[in-house]
């Protein structure tokens, strides 16, 4: 008679084998889809090798718990194939991929990205390689040396953008904020953690403000309460720093476009919502204030003020000034700060955030180096691109550095804010925004191809 363990193992193995086969079948079907770049196909290859490793492990290992772990992992993996389905053409704004890939690689050199759209409204970068490494860490590595634990494998990232805004290329500068999280991680890593711990311990104090009955608790229970309070303050602090640094990265990478995109992405959100357990983001008003401060420090207010020339350029100047003034008015109101002060946890966490906020811009600037948005000739570049856009031409110019798509996006934002119409007799309508998005998308395609064509020609002439 079979022992219960052996029966269990057999049953779990059968389930695991089926799940692996199912994932394999799906990967095969996904291999047949058309993708704008070869990255999704390479990611499929990586997943296939991972599945093969899991199959070998399942066959060789006699521990039912290992087999169960494989089943759980494969179930999770099965849900990731949706990333590939939504990475196929035309579900993604394909011209965005290459420039974003280059930008992300400049910050995280080993990164390879699969860009996909998702139905829920969110921008997100999932570090798949890291996730798989953590999940499989307890298992024998030799099954995964050609996939998850391969030294030659790039760091796979799935970059998600919202399907409803997929065609709205202007919004995708939020990916600058998302990649900023990697720099925010570095900002947090360089902190003096023992000193911060001490500061948080001081802020927790006797803990009575959080738990009035703490003196009546036994010492162990009181310590648990204090630890919980400590953790919550630190979570709010880390969440706040993550978002604020990432916003500054986005602004330094994409210039004013990031400010405009942040505003549009938060247009229906409460401005004074405090950080909560499901999202430790600072209140939007606080973020506007922080981004506007950096916007001003970078001199964009004056740069916009300097725009002169054609009717459209001056309209852009005036409309952008109005737009920025409206955001500044939001930021001047102190209702978020009042709300922060009224919440005992947030008040303490934000005392720590405020203490380091001043160091964020310089830190980000050092990290980004030459990637910082080029403000030289801002006026001339923008005026030229707006002139093209006004005539219904993709905003790309020979005068701009090849491949730098960021001014094309900024020109798009300016046209959007100025409610540029492409109808010779018409008033602005939503069709104009859709046309604008298409033209900027085209400009991104052109920026990328011209850069690569020029490099090919130089190589050919040089050789």
């Amino acid at each position, binding site marked *: 008679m079979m022992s219960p363990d052996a029966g269990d193992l057999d049953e779990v193995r059968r389930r695991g084998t089926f799940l692996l086969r199912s994932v394999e079948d799906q990967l095969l079907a996904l291999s047949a889809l058309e993708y704008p770049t070869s990255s999704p196909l390479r990611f499929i290859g990586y997943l296939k090798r991972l599945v093969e490793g899991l199959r070998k492990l399942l066959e060789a290992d006699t521990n039912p718990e290992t087999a169960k772990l494989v089943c759980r992992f494969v179930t999770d993996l099965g849900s990731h194939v949706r990333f590939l389905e939504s990475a196929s053409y035309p579900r993604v704004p394909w011209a965005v991929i290459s420039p974003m890939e280059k930008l992300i690689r400049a910050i995280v050199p080993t990164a390879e990205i699969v860009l996909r759209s998702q139905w829920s409204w969110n921008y997100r970068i999932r570090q798949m390689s890291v996730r798989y490494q953590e999940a499989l860490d307890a298992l024998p590595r030799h099954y995964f040396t050609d996939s998850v634990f391969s030294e030659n494998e790039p760091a796979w990232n799935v970059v998600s953008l919202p399907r409803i805004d997929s065609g709205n290329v202007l919004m995708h500068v939020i990916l600058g904020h998302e990649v900023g999280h990697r720099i925010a991680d570095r900002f947090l890593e360089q902190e003096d953690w023992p000193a911060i711990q001490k500061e948080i311990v001081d802020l927790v104090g006797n803990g009575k403000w959080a738990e009035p009955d703490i003196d009546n608790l036994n010492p162990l229970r009181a310590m648990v309460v204090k630890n919980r309070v400590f953790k919550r303050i630190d979570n709010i602090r880390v969440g706040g720093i993550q978002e604020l640094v990432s916003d500054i990265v986005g602004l330094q990478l994409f210039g004013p476009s990031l400010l405009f995109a942040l505003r549009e992405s938060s247009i229906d959100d409460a401005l004074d919502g405090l950080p909560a357990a499901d999202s430790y983001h600072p209140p939007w008003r606080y973020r506007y204030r922080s981004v506007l401060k950096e916007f001003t420090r970078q001199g964009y207010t004056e740069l916009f003020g300097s725009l002169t020339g054609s009717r459209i350029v001056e309209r852009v100047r005036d409309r952008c000034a109005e737009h920025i003034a409206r955001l500044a008015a939001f930021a001047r109101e102190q209702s978020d700060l009042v709300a922060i002060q009224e919440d005992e946890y947030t008040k303490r966490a934000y005392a720590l955030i405020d203490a380091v906020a001043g160091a964020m811009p310089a830190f980000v600037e050092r990290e980004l180096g030459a990637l910082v948005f080029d403000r030289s000739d801002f006026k001339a570049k923008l005026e030229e691109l707006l002139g093209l856009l006004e005539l219904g031409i993709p905003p790309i110019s020979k005068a701009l550095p090849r491949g730098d798509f960021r001014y094309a996006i900024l020109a798009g934002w300016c046209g959007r804010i100025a409610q540029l119409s492409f109808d010779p007799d018409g008033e602005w309508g939503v069709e104009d925004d859709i046309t604008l998005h298409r033209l900027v998308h085209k400009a991104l395609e*052109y920026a990328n191809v*011209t850069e690569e064509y020029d490099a090919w020609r130089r190589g050919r002439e040089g050789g």
Partner: protein
Amino acid sequence: MAARARRGLDFVLGREAILRALNEARLDRRLIVTPLLSETQIGEVSVDLRLGTEFVTTRRANIPAVEPLKKDEAEVQTLKWQELFLVPRGKKLVLHPGELILGGSFEYVRLPPDLGAYVTSRSSWGRLGLVIATATAIAPGYRGIITLELTNVGNAPLVLSPGVRIAQMLFHHIGEDVVYRGRYRCPTIPEMGKIHADEELGFWLTEREGPR
């Protein structure tokens, strides 16, 4: 007549005139063909256009017939029987004998208000059986990519690839400035026709009422 010919009003623009039009100081009167990756695209009387990366093909669909005259039906049918697809740089597109695929020029074009244009095949492709356009006139003021109706009239499958020089554009002066009022609004991908947008269809598609 001789004076008009000297001003180039009646004739196809030559290389010098094309270059002048491309370098016109006033942006709103400039001929724009962007991006012009290579100067060699400017020929003696034409500008070479490259094949773009996005295409529209048709597929079998559960529809009785194509109804291009009725807007609502045309729009739904379009989604049912047409498919947009991408051929990235470096990949190939196979055009089978008798097949129609809509492609687009890689370049985006804007004609100034006093220039018209024609798009024609390049003879090298024509000799292989490729027809690239049947509606070739481009109106002054038009802006957008040029949609190409790619048909293989030969009897062997034909391999195409994005970026190849596939068509040429010839320009001619118009005696007056024209404001473009066509149906195509800055297209950036190949688009199907918009016959249903003809205003007078309302008359021609309505049966006559009352005594005859």
